[in-house]
């Protein structure tokens, strides 16, 4: 975890409300795919937590969706402007359990953190299949990026306007060793019900601090070591990635 000042080197729209923000600077301190950064914006009291799409040396790329006044403001920032960023937040994905043919399942704004994960898994010699789900063709992004890495890529759209028609759960391959997923909660619940293997889920929650101090983003989890016992985790700190075996869905 580190506070650092990064310079914007690009901030371009990928779809009507999804942008790719490129940043450069020292002290990125990112150790695992699936970690996130927390960005301070002028005039906004709370930071905005954004997942990491890609990182290489001092170059950081984020993909974010504009969902309110803060991310709208971010989308209007220009190359050369600077951002105060807390980096290296959250646990990130644990790659050690991936097996030989991991499956990545991303939905909408949940697709970005799977990119760095795919890159690392491929680097480790795994065969990676990415299923990317969107509502409609106009919202699709990232497909070419994942293909360029060398993944097998299946794109699904809910209305069938691009790729296969359906949801990510309609595109599960026959065989996979493990899965990693990130997306809206209804999708995560569907993946939970459909998947045949163990896997890891990345969650979203409204955060105060992003580094474990305020308890704003706590959730209940099962304790795999002590069946029947319930513990809590902070999405920002012990998450955002939770193992399938510990997830407790709210009613």
């Amino acid at each position, binding site marked *: 975890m580190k506070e650092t000042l990064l310079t914007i080197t690009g901030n371009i729209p990928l779809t009507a409300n999804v942008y790719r923000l490129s940043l450069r600077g020292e002290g990125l301190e990112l150790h695992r795919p699936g970690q996130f950064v927390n960005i301070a914006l002028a005039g906004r009291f709370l930071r905005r937590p954004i997942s990491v799409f890609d990182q290489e040396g001092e170059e950081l790329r984020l993909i974010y969706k504009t969902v309110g006044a803060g991310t709208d403001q971010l989308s209007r920032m220009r190359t050369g402007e600077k951002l105060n960023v807390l980096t290296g937040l959250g646990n990130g994905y644990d790659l050690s359990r991936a097996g030989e043919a991991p499956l990545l399942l991303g939905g909408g704004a949940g697709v970005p953190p799977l990119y760095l994960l795919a890159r690392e898994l491929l680097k480790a010699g795994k065969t990676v299949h990415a299923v990317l789900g969107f509502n409609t063709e106009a919202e699709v992004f990232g497909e070419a990026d994942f293909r360029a890495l060398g993944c097998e890529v299946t794109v699904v759209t809910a209305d069938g306007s691009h790729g296969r028609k359906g949801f990510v759960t309609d595109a599960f391959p026959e065989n996979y060793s493990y899965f990693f997923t990130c997306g809206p909660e209804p999708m995560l619940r569907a993946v939970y019900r459909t998947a045949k293997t163990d896997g890891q889920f990345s969650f979203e929650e409204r955060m105060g601090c992003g*580094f474990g101090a305020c308890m704003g983003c706590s959730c209940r989890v099962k304790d795999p070591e002590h069946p029947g016992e319930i513990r809590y985790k902070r999405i920002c700190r012990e998450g955002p990635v939770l193992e399938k075996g510990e997830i407790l869905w709210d009613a």
Partner: protein
Amino acid sequence: MGRLSVELCGLPLDNPVIPASGTFGFGYEFAEWYDINCLGTFSFKGTTREARFGNPTPRIAECPSGMINAVGLQNPGVDRVIAEELPKLKRVFHKPVMANVSGFSLQEYQETCALLDQEEQVGWLEVNISCPNVHGGGMSFGTDPAAAAEVTRAVKAVTHKPVIMKLSPNVTDIAAIAKACEDAGADAVSLINTLQGMRIDLRTRRPVLQNVTGGVSGPAVFPVALRMVWQVSRAVRIPVVGMGGISSPEDVLEMMMAGASAVEVGAANLTDPLACRKIIGGLPAAMDRYGIENLRELINR
């Protein structure tokens, strides 16, 4: 004594800056960002007799110049705080710490305070009678002078360490509550806890917080807090710990000029994990600008 040193209920503080309960955990999260021994002390996460998960999420909303929380006193309960959190805290913080206690009955306040009073690391007990986010407890003790006095007497009867009563701003006359605490034996008062507020999501037309309402903190509440610290400082003789929206060295000076003997910093820790270190580091230069030789000269009530 250094320019920044003050004292609180007979215990020396290297400086008056105290991270506020609920914004600093049990310290060790922040020890990853900086050496927290530069702090005067800090007030640890509000502790209750039994473990509490708190309220359902979302528990956090943003507002102009501040935030609203409805965490609801999530904590592992006093037994685990003593068994697990205090040993971890001790490894990273080597000064007396302020124990923050909440409760839902006089007996619960007494039991929790009595247990923490025996802990060597604990220098002060800060008794929260002002949490706006729990039902059937917390703030209801802090909105009536007689009830506030009752909690004070009950806690004082079972403890030896200085007792600081943490007051709610959600009252008509905070000075009357402070006076009632003083008359009941409180060693100090701290104020303000958060102001009740809410936000509505325009898209869903529903409150942002699952709890509907929450507590507003951050720079937005600073002038309100300052006014209340001023009023209370003129109503009681015991020390007043000022808090509410402090985020700069200048805010510390202003709060002390209003009558505070020390200050707590809350929401600022959540947007900048290094906030308290920066505030402490900036105090000497700010004091120079306003001709303040040492902070003790400001405490003149």
